[in-house]
């Protein structure tokens, strides 16, 4: 055993970097109903981009109404945001569309069109899109009880500095978090419960139980956080069937736990005398956001891309589209502001300079003579950056290295938005696609040499 | 004496084919049967021959059985799937029709309802296997039966095979015997020499072979057979003999009778196929001295 002798095939930088400058109009759209949208619009405009702010309210100021619901704000924060609104309203780089809803979108980075209020698509062109929408938090209470609340409400209580107070006025001694009641597996809730639980246990000696279906260790630092929580005395249970709640004078939860025993041999657990139960909410995506995501082939998953690199916190699966605010479920005001700025900066990097240099070697390329136009790549591409060009003259595609006049009906990769991930390469049944900078032969050659 | 006993006895068997009516008037059908009563060992009742829609072999055989005839019930594969075929075999047994003849059957597109859906779920060999299974007490899928039938099973045999086909046919005969065939009825025989050659190859299997003898009604019919029906060849000698005779009907009966007489030494029986000349069958029997 050693750590020195492994043969390693690394990702090549590029064969021979070939930078192609493409022009990108510094024009962006910010569809929003969330303060994060204002932050992004302000930042992008201040960097010199032409920004169209699209929102459904009478005035820009109305966007701030949500600030109160979501976050705890003091007068300093309020002042900061009032100044933000003033800047947005005054900035000549920002044109504001009041009372406007988004009903769809299409296109690619550098050439997006937004459908607003059912108008023609041509109505709004933009090179990039930064969006931020509210999400409606829905707490599914088993029955009406003041001591059963959602995460958002609980965070607000804590942030008000009343850590040991429950909504019922009772001193908080026994607390249970119940996760995974909704369908979607959202890691933020586990993360929040673990962090808050550890804090409450350590700082105030609150007895904390966390009930979940599955431990989510898939984020950075989660394993460590779980360990810390356990060491602090937070008890984590795993249930199979939905826990049963009982109300009355004393709030209790009954469920079958599988964390100590095996799945086949569960243990009946009853948590009694709870002062507070915090339920994981489900979040309802805004109509406008849904229409936008569907139109751009992003989908909810694509909007929440959370790559391991936290630098890109605002990225979606599409180049030229970033998200912030409630669209990504941040926890605190500071988080929200950071994400919004990071997202805006990301979009500025792509769209701000008027030109963009692309290494056309670091992309996938289709060999049209092999392409069976099966549409696999078109369906699979996370960036939606493959088009199929089947009909007529306008779609004729002359390939590299082919004689002039050689035309094929085939898929074509848009080099501008291709990120070189290779998903299309690995799925193509005709083996018609290759990553130019990292062809299959590299891998096959390495295997042959080293095995 | 039942048909099975006749087979065992080794005597030369006489079978007559009697086509069920296309309709429900049984008068002619029964008339033809009565005309040969006591002079033949069994009456073969074909099922949907050449895919022409008519009364089923099962019903017609049962009518004959009730009138005291020995009937051979025919089950071809063309128009029923394995479920119906097995059920039909069970039905034949409970009606007392325990002598059956299994063949591949004809495609509907040569019959009078050419648009019908072709079935051929099972081939002849698979149906023979099914019959074997039924007699052993379970169906083709291996499910147990509540009471097993017992049959005397016949299969077909293309006696017109020559050259490469002959090898295949002999192989097929062997296979069918393994699948429980008790007797064979051949395709129509006209060429005795050729048939003798084939019989030399299948004789060692020691399974009774019954040769079909078709009553040749006219020279036109002979020519049609030579042109359109694979595996059956009317030799020139027979055609020229017919041409010479002034009384074609008489010639026809004599030719048939002489064929039957030559076959008496070659195989274990004949099945007379009248093809519309049912009324002439007694004359053929007379001419043969049966």
């Amino acid at each position, binding site marked *: 055993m050693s750590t020195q002798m492994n043969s390693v095939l690394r990702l090549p930088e590029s064969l021979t970097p070939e930078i192609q400058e493409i022009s990108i109009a510094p024009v962006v759209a910010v569809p929003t109903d969330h303060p994060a949208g204002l932050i992004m619009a302000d930042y992008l405009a201040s960097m010199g981009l032409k920004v169209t702010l699209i929102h459904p309210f009478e005035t820009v100021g109305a966007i701030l109404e949500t600030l109160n619901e979501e976050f705890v704000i003091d007068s300093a924060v309020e002042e900061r945001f009032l100044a933000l609104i003033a800047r947005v309203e005054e900035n000549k780089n920002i044109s504001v569309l009041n009372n406007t809803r988004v009903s769809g979108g299409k296109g690619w980075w550098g050439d997006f069109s937004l459908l607003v209020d059912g108008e023609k698509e041509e109505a709004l062109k933009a090179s990039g899109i930064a969006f931020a929408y509210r999400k409606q938090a829905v707490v599914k209470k088993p029955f009406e009880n003041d001591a059963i609340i959602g995460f958002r409400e609980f965070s607000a209580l804590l942030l008000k500095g009343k850590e040991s107070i429950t909504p019922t006025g009772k001193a908080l001694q026994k607390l249970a978090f119940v996760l995974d009641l909704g369908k979607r597996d959202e890691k933020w809730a586990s993360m929040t419960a673990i962090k808050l639980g550890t804090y409450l246990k350590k700082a105030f000696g609150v007895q904390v139980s966390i009930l979940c279906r599955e431990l989510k260790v898939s984020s950075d630092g989660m394993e460590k956080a779980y360990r810390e929580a356990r060491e602090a005395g937070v008890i984590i249970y795993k249930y199979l069937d939905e826990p049963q709640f009982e109300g009355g004078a004393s709030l209790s939860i009954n469920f079958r736990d599988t964390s100590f025993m095996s799945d086949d041999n569960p243990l009946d657990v009853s948590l009694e005398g709870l002062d507070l139960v915090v339920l994981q909410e489900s979040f309802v995506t805004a109509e406008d956001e849904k229409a936008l995501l569907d139109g751009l082939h992003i989908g909810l998953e694509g909007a929440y891309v959370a790559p391991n690199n936290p630098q890109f916190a605002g990225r979606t699966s599409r180049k030229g589209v970033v998200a912030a605010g409630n669209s990504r479920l941040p926890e605190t005001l500071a988080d929200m502001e950071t994400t919004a700025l990071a997202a805006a900066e990301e979009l500025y990097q792509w769209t701000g300079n008027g030109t963009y240099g692309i290494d056309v070697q670091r992309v996938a390329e289709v060999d049209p003579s*092999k392409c*069976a136009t*099966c549409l*696999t790549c078109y*369906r*699979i591409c996370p960036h939606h950056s493959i088009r199929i060009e089947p009909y007529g003259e306008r779609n004729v595609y002359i390939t590299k290295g082919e004689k002039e006049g050689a035309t094929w009906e085939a898929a074509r990769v848009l080099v501008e938005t291709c990120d070189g991930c290779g998903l299309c390469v690995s799925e*193509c*049944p*005709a*083996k018609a696609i290759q990553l130019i900078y990292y062809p299959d032969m590299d891998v096959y050659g390495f295997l042959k040499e080293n095995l | 004496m039942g048909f099975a006993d006749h087979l065992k006895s080794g005597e030369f068997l006489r079978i007559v084919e009697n086509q069920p009516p296309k309709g429900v008037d049984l008068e002619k059908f029964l008339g033809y049967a009565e005309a040969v009563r006591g002079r033949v060992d069994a009456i073969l009742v074909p099922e949907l021959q050449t895919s022409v829609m008519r009364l089923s072999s099962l019903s017609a055989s049962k009518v004959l059985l009730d009138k005291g005839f020995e009937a051979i019930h025919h089950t071809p594969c063309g128009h029923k799937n394995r479920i119906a075929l097995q059920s039909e075999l069970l039905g034949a047994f409970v009606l007392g029709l325990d002598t059956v003849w299994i063949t591949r059957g004809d*495609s*509907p*597109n040569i019959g009078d309802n*050419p*648009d*019908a*859906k*072709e079935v051929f779920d099972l081939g002849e060999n698979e149906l023979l296997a099914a019959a074997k299974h039924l007699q052993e007490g379970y169906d083709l899928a291996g499910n147990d039966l509540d009471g097993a039938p017992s049959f005397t099973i016949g299969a077909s045999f293309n006696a017109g095979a020559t050259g490469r086909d002959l090898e295949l046919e002999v192989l097929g005969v062997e296979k069918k015997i393994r699948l429980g065939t008790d007797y064979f009825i051949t395709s129509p025989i006209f060429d005795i020499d050729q048939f003798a050659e084939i019989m030399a190859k299948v004789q060692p299997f020691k399974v009774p072979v019954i040769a079909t003898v078709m009553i040749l009604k006219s020279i036109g019919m002979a020519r049609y057979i030579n042109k359109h029906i694979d595996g059956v060849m009317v030799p020139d000698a027979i055609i020229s003999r017919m041409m010479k005779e002034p009384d074609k009907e008489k010639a026809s009966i004599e030719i048939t009778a002489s064929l039957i007489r030559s076959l008496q030494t070659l195989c274990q029986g004949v099945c007379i196929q009248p093809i519309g000349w049912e009324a002439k069958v007694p004359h053929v029997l007379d001419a043969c001295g049966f």
Partner: protein
Amino acid sequence: MIIAEQKPMEEILEMLAPYKKILLAGCGACVTVCQAGGEKEVGVLASQIRLARKDAGNPIEVLEMTMTRQCEPEFMEEAEDAMKEVDAVLSIACGIGVQLMAKTFFDKPALPGLNTTFLGFPEEHGVFTERCAACGNCVLHLTGGICPIARCSKSLLNGPCGGSQDGKCEISPDVECAWQLIYDRLKALGQLENLENIIPPKKWITSRDGGPRKIVREDLRI
């Protein structure tokens, strides 16, 4: 498009048992698109065969090739050289490809690596469904563009059979009742009166029931 799926590995290995060197031939047409016999499947299957045989201590040499289309005699040329070297060819084209291989290379066994399954389309990526039975006598104009021959499990021309429940077929709750679909579509089209007419019994003679079919276009023959 012709939809096919790969035969079980056991079956493929059994077929290949007598051979030491084979050609694995894919096809660049339908089976590429339904991801059963394209270049990728050729690569993966070849590796699988080699692995299994190596493991069994009876190694086999597998040449790989994906032909443009295995359903045209002209493209058979592509395989000529390779066929000289091998004991047999395992074709992962549809049944047409296998037969054309058998016909072209008469002295070498042509083995099928796929089960050619039906005429259909991908309902979603990775889900293929049957839509046409190639019966040779189309009735789609009478049935709202939904084929009762291919999609009704009893191929009823004047359905429904009465066995469907909640619009699902009695054979499985995953199968939609074709006659429910036909009814819905005709209703949407305002053509429900179509259902009052009785469609005459099907002419199966145009289907496989009339024997192997053949189309001769004298105007096209060269």
